[in-house]
């Protein structure tokens, strides 16, 4: 089995895995980074969102063999001490219900605010509409992204 060297959250990690293994399962099963969630496996729900070279990416569709060239950041690497403005806003607004989708929501929001730190409400709603929250905590996600944006800009 081939060995892949990956850069995850600033660390160099290597894994022996089948070449078509999605990065999602390498993160979860091999690296114990279980914050990145499995929801659909076809890039439709956003629960597995990570940053690949700073871009919000569905790790269920990113093959490990392709990810070797990229800087990967997961929810575990977003901040050392829950200090990222998006995490702070999530905490202050108390967004989660079941909490399962929230890491993906946070990663999507963090990448989006990197690109657009002063978004309109409609831009936020569009940017976040790729992530499903089955508990429908959407009102709070929306508010939290707005609040994080106000702190970043």
């Amino acid at each position, binding site marked *: 089995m081939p060995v892949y060297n990956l850069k995850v959250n600033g660390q160099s990690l290597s894994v022996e895995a089948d070449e078509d293994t999605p990065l999602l*399962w390498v993160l979860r099963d091999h690296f114990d980074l279980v*914050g*990145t969630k499995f929801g659909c*496996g076809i890039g439709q729900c956003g629960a597995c969102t990570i940053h690949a070279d700073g871009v919000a990416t569905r790790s269920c569709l990113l093959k490990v063999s392709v990810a070797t060239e990229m800087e990967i950041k997961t929810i575990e690497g977003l901040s050392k001490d829950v200090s990222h403005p998006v995490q702070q806003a999530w905490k202050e607004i108390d967004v*989660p219900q079941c909490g399962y989708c929230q890491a993906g929501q946070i990663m999507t929001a963090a990448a989006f605010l990197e690109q657009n730190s002063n978004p309109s409400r409609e831009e936020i709603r569009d940017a976040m*509409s790729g992530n499903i929250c089955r*508990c429908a905590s959407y009102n709070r996600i929306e508010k939290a992204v707005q609040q994080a944006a106000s702190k970043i800009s």
Partner: protein
Amino acid sequence: MKRITTPSVSRRSFIRTSALAGGGILIGFNLFQACKPEVTPPTDIVDIADLNFNDFNAFIKIADNGMVTIFSPNPEIGQGVKTSMPMLIAEELDVDWKNVHVVQGALDTKNFTRQVAGGSQSLRQGWEPLRQTGATAKQMLVNAAAAKWGVDPSTCTTNKGVIKNGNGDTLGYGEVVKEAASLKVPESVKLKDSKDFNIIGKDIHNVDVDKIITGKSLFGLDYKEEGMLYVSVVRPPAFGKKLHDFDATEAKEVIGVIDVFKFGDKIAVLAENTWSAMKGKKIVKAKWTDDSKLENTRDHDKALIDLLNGKEFDTMRADGDVKKAFAAADKVLERVYESPFLPHNCMEPMNFFAHVTDDKVRLVGPIQTPAGTARRVASLLDRKPEEVSVEMTRMGGGFGRRLYGDFALEAAEISSISKKPVKVVYSREDDMSAGIYRPAIKYKISAAIKDGKLTGYHLKEAAVNSNMYGLIPNFFPAGAVENYQVDVAKYDSNITIGAWRAPYTNFLAFAEQSFFDDLAELMEVDNIQLRLDLLQKVKGNTDERIQYSPERLEKVIKTAIEKSEWGKKPEGVYQGFSSYYCHNTHVAEVADVVLVDDQPVVKKVTCVVDCGIVVNPLGAKNQIEGGVIDGIGHAMYGDFSFKDGEPQDTNFDTYRLIRMNETPIVETHFIESDIAPTGLGEPTLPPAGAAVANAIKAAKGVRLTKQPFVKNMENKAVLG
């Protein structure tokens, strides 16, 4: 409110104390009176790590330094009980919430019957016993301090974990825990007056929020153990098919696949990691044969309509004589409402860990019914119930799906065969096609009008496999109409069904509240006034079966009129009204709809809720916002059909769930109350669909009677 009762508490049988090896006091308690009275307390000095929770279903640990750990008993599915149930204990214990640490308790398989997440009942049933427990612990600490000082305990007061006597001396809880542990449990304690609450009624953040937003291991899917194998299961592709034979030669060649074997009508693919298991599963060559009828949605539709038009019903409630009322009527209104099957689609797909060995069966995972599941596993594997243990992880949603332990039984059986610790993991496709759906249901509602008055109301239900539960016929408008009847009939299918958030009422409320708007139109009266007038007739009704309070329903309706600025919106904003009682909670909702390119868009929902005392407003509002949007999402988009027994949607590319750009803003208002709290996980969902449908009627003049609205073909002009 006379019909809401909280269980009485026999403290002596339900509270025991022990001194802890590491210092501190441990107080064990049973939450619900359904527990057996004879329980064995942990004896003498115990080590908390050794506790197997076999005696009590919850514990408070107070350490020497005054830190309090509360082991929360009930499963957490996102409804917030892991935060709100410990709040009740902490309130009466009188400690600072910031010194409270909450830990998920495990299952007691022997003694208790309601360690369940379901029916929006956790807070309602825990209200009295949880506060009693906190108060009892506090009294014991006070008694210990008073003895130390040589004063009368009644001269002592407490505040945030500190006891004070009349001389101004103080002792922290942690300083008297050792003494308190050896004291007698007091016979009776006084609970706080609600005006003295320091924690109840305050915005308390989700106790797991830091772990959630940093991606810590919390959920069943995150759980792993050394040597554990991941399992993908091949299940019959259609209801009505069974396994004939299979060839796993290629699957076994997949890197990481360890073993493939048959169990029952399923095939287990065991692998070193999830991906290998899923990949192996896809290339197992299975042959299936027909076992029973392969059903189609078209057949269900016809069968249910035939039932509604037929004569074979079970009558669940009959007041007066509806037949006579309809025969004498000046006008009759009749409407049929139709809903599809729905999958639950918890974001965390079903999964469970099992390790079956000669001496025990260990189960770990997300489950709403740990006790029932443990019993079923024991029976399946022919083991003694006490050999089975269940640890509950946080759940990535439940919505009723995790009431059914089918996935845990699979894991147990596979571990039993393979002699390995295993975790069964469903793909989304597995999750959506493995069964246990909200059943397809149709309602026919008829009303008889005589001399401008509603004289008869007849509700008929036709459902797949199972009909409404017994309390529902006693909801509104029972008691308000002289001649009133509820009839049910069912069609037996091989498609498995089960509870789905707010079972039955999730669609019945849509039917009924849509119907009342049309009824008002036919009667040429105001739609809300019609409801209020009917409620007047229920006031003073002594029928004990009636579940709702007309006064409380009236209050939420009137408050919703005010808060939503009903009838006062600018031109172009169309409002729809809906009110409902279920799960002991009274709700009224108003949806504001605007037209964008002539298509209706829901902009805002005003939701007024009477759930008694609001324990945690921050968490409560989250439940309400989610319930309303979930209700709208499924009414608009939720569709699930079968062809030859096979589910036609298996993932989110074709199965549509509501997304952020489609959501209204939900504005919540609570009715101030000092009545014991009632549930919030379900009751705001049922009325949401009708509020939207009634607003769409106002906007477009078209009545929607089928869900999902987007596939409502007769109304293609409305929703495209």
